[in-house]
């Protein structure tokens, strides 16, 4: 996780083309694309979306490993989607075994959902890898997301890497002492690890809270995004063009 997330942060701050686009434009564009992806539910749109996002990530120098990671998790669900539709939906039977039948039209419907998942997941990942967390927080505040929620998001992100580093250190120490050598030892180690991690998190939380109070800490989300520039106008125009092409088809 740490490797992927650090890389995520590096990519987000990398100053690539995608990073320079105003986060408000990226959030609005993401929501619009995801809504159209669901509403149209068309294989052509979803496939084009997936290709466009992969292309954007390649142009933004997002490593291929990171791109692969983005599609790895939803892959299992695409199989479930195809299987459930082929079994539960449609009329044209292509194979059957007793009461279980596979339908051709259901299979096609399942493939559409699979492509919808792939396209949608890639859109979300593009937003994730191209937007530094503080830009995201400022944009969310601009969209009137409750301050407490956005502050919590910022604080979580701030502490996440420290906690994960601590978690990794403790787990490596357990591994050296053969704490994960078999299932029983693994269960015992996971209990110790979870408990010890919680105690550390709790103590650190108390210290961080005290420190914030001592320095009269103000809002966690501060700063401004400025006015959208030329790159944002070009992005909006390209997005509109992309949508118009598929709306007309």
């Amino acid at each position: 996780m740490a490797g992927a997330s650090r890389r995520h942060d590096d990519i987000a701050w990398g100053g690539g083309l995608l990073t320079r686009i105003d986060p408000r434009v990226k959030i609005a564009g993401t929501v619009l694309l995801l809504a159209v992806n669901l509403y149209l539910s068309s294989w052509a749109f979803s496939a084009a979306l997936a290709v466009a996002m992969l292309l954007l990530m390649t142009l933004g120098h997002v490593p291929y490993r990171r791109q692969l990671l983005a599609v790895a998790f939803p892959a299992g669900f695409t199989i479930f989607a195809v299987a459930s539709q082929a079994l539960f939906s449609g009329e044209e039977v292509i194979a059957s075994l007793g009461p279980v039948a596979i339908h051709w039209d259901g299979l096609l419907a399942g493939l559409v959902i699979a492509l919808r998942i792939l396209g949608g997941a890639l859109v979300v990942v593009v937003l994730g890898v191209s937007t530094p967390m503080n830009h995201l927080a400022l944009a969310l505040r601009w969209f009137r997301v409750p301050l407490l929620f956005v502050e919590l998001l910022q604080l979580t992100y701030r502490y996440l890497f420290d906690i994960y580093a601590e978690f990794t250190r403790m787990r490596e120490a357990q591994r050296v002492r053969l704490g994960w050598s078999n299932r029983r030892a693994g269960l015992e180690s996971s209990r110790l690890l979870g408990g010890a991690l919680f105690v550390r998190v709790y103590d650190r939380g108390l210290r961080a809270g005290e420190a914030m109070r001592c320095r009269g800490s103000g809002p966690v989300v501060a700063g401004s995004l400025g006015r959208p520039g030329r790159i944002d106008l070009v992005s909006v125009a390209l997005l509109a063009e992309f949508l118009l092409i598929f709306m007309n088809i």
Partner: protein
Amino acid sequence: MHIPEGMLPAGQAAAWYAPAAAFVAGGIVQVKRRLARAAEYKAMLGLMAAFVFVVSLMPVPVPGIGTVSHPCGTPLAAILLGPFAAVLVGAVALLMQALFFAHGGITTWGANILSMAVAGSFAGYGTYVLARRLGLGLGAAAGLAGFLGDLATYGVTSLQLALGLHGDQSIPVVWATAFVSFLPTQVPLAIAEGLFTAGVLVFIARQREDILKGVELAP
């Protein structure tokens, strides 16, 4: 089980947002009330959300099927923070997992909040409180809470999937099929979550009883 982006039809994805938003709003109200009394609670909550994020990626050996899986972490968070705060923390963790790893999604965020954060937290918390009132020990109550919290999460997720993907079949049939076909892997997983939740809570009670007693973290 995080439902990925694009899995649910548009209408249903939108519909799941309404109840999820109500619970998150409940969490915000409760946490704000607490913050008015103790401003330092904000940092604690941020750290707890990071804790839930890390715990939900922690490998726990699953008894019986010889593999490792990840606990939800929300039943444990609900016991330690209270169910509404756990929903808020869970919602933050889910959004970050969607953005970082495509675990879950934006349009399915509402559905995932409802299954993982709401069902997991409230089933876990309710079970824990009930079991303690019935006189069960800390470990047994926490174990039961983890087990049922995990099963509740799984039950709601399979209902959401059945509603979204039932095709021409009746919803109960698809739900039952999905629920039963995943039971052989989900029951051991729920047992692992129960053992993990109990183990962590007993560890904290033994090593740092002050945490559970002193600072209003535990109910």
